């Protein structure tokens, strides 16, 4: 175990080409999925935060329930749609990074929507009287809330990114874990572990942890700076 750990660190330090390729693809896929999920989830979260309509409670329950979507189920659904006999099979996206982005986007968009809804609803409760007095339109209200909650929403995005970069079930089904094409950190860890190559698996695990720490530290630092200016 100790020897494997040492070898893993050496592999990371040496800048192994395969390792870099896997890490780069992982980050590319999960960051793209996070951006897509934010583009979809933030407006939905903001709309539900400020709107009052029939069935809103049912929507809230659904949004919260979708946060717990099992990755393998999402992977299976995306697989069924993208497979050659599926409705979107003509796009030829199965076993491509794009398919992985789609699956991760579906997986984390509900997380972004549900968490941002809570953040924005709390802020709206504080601003509502002032905004009504100013006669803001719903679009102006949503824009103002999204901007003023931007630092809190960074944490929401981070939660989505964390879920995306750490999941294995969806990307392995729609990506196929193909070497030099769709192999990402989590699928590689699963494969190397099953092969008994613990050095590579550990090296990838270390990088995954370091990335998670670095991203969290960066977001926390931005939030602290904002908090000092009372912008949070």
């Amino acid at each position, binding site marked *: 175990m100790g020897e494997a750990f040492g070898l893993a660190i050496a592999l990371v330090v040496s800048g192994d080409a395969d390792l870099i390729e896997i890490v780069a693809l992982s980050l590319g896929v999960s960051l793209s999925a996070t951006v897509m999920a934010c583009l979809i989830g933030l407006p939905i979260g903001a709309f539900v935060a400020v709107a009052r309509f029939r069935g809103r409670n049912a929507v809230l329950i659904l949004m919260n329930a979708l946060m717990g979507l099992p990755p393998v189920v999402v992977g299976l659904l995306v697989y069924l749609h993208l497979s050659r006999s599926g409705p979107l099979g003509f796009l030829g996206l199965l076993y491509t990074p794009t398919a992985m982005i789609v699956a991760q986007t579906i997986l984390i968009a509900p997380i972004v929507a549900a968490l941002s809804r809570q953040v924005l609803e709390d802020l709206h409760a*504080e*601003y509502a*009287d*002032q905004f*009504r*007095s*100013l*006669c*803001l339109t719903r679009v*102006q209200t949503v824009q*103002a809330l999204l*901007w*003023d909650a931007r630092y809190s929403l960074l944490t929401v995005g981070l939660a989505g990114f964390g879920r995306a970069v750490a999941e294995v079930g969806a990307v392995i089904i729609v990506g196929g874990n193909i070497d030099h094409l769709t192999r990402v950190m989590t699928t590689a860890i699963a494969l190397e572990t099953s092969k008994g190559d613990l050095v590579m698996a550990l090296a990838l695990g270390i990088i995954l942890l370091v990335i998670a720490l670095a991203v969290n530290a960066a977001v926390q630092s931005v939030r602290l700076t904002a908090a000092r*200016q*009372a*912008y*949070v």
Partner: protein
Amino acid sequence: MSDAVVISSAAFPSAAKAPPVLPLKVRDLVLRFGNSTVLDGVSLDLGPGGCTMVLGPNGAGKSLLLKLLHGLIAPSSGQVTWGGQPAAQVTARQALVFQKPILLRRSVAANIDFVLKARGKNRAQRDALLEHVGLAHKSDQPARLLSGGEAQRLALARALATDPEVLFLDEPTASLDPASVQAIEAIVRDARDRGVRIIFVSHDIGQARRMADDVVFLHRGRVAEHSTASDFFPEPRSSAARDYLNGRIVV
């Protein structure tokens, strides 16, 4: 603090206005929450110009009356009309400053810019407005780090940025130091002198004496008295107002 009383005409460019919103007519206004009646048959007439102070003990319904007049909430029954129009139709021509300023999580300047942009107004007014309320030197500072008095002056500047015809003030100087109170009163007085109709809720009788042209005294959700300031303070007609002015507990 003397900056606060510097008046710059650039802050308030003259603009073509729709027909005046006044007079205000309130008829048999009732507001209920469940079984509790907060306002119980309020009727009131206010003409153009001047500063109306709304006085009354805690729980009399003063803040809720302001929100009803501003069209932020709907009454259970009764009518509020401004120049014959329902309250909710003229909300945009009025502004309300809350007891606790609700400031955006942005800089001082950005708080003004936000309103000017939302109302499609020229952002060039911003500097003049900040100068007018004595906050020009804090333009780039985070709004939520301002002192209580400064925050309320910013809230006032933001309200004035909408170029309101009616300005509602809901205890804007509660818990502020005397210098801040003086600065805010100077800004409000200036707005009144420029023709903005002021409706001012306060618990500060000294402030009411300084600011009021007329006084509406609310008691138990009703208008116990509506008189000119020169009549109200020396000789209040209602026993509740007399007790209130004499510092006795009024419930």
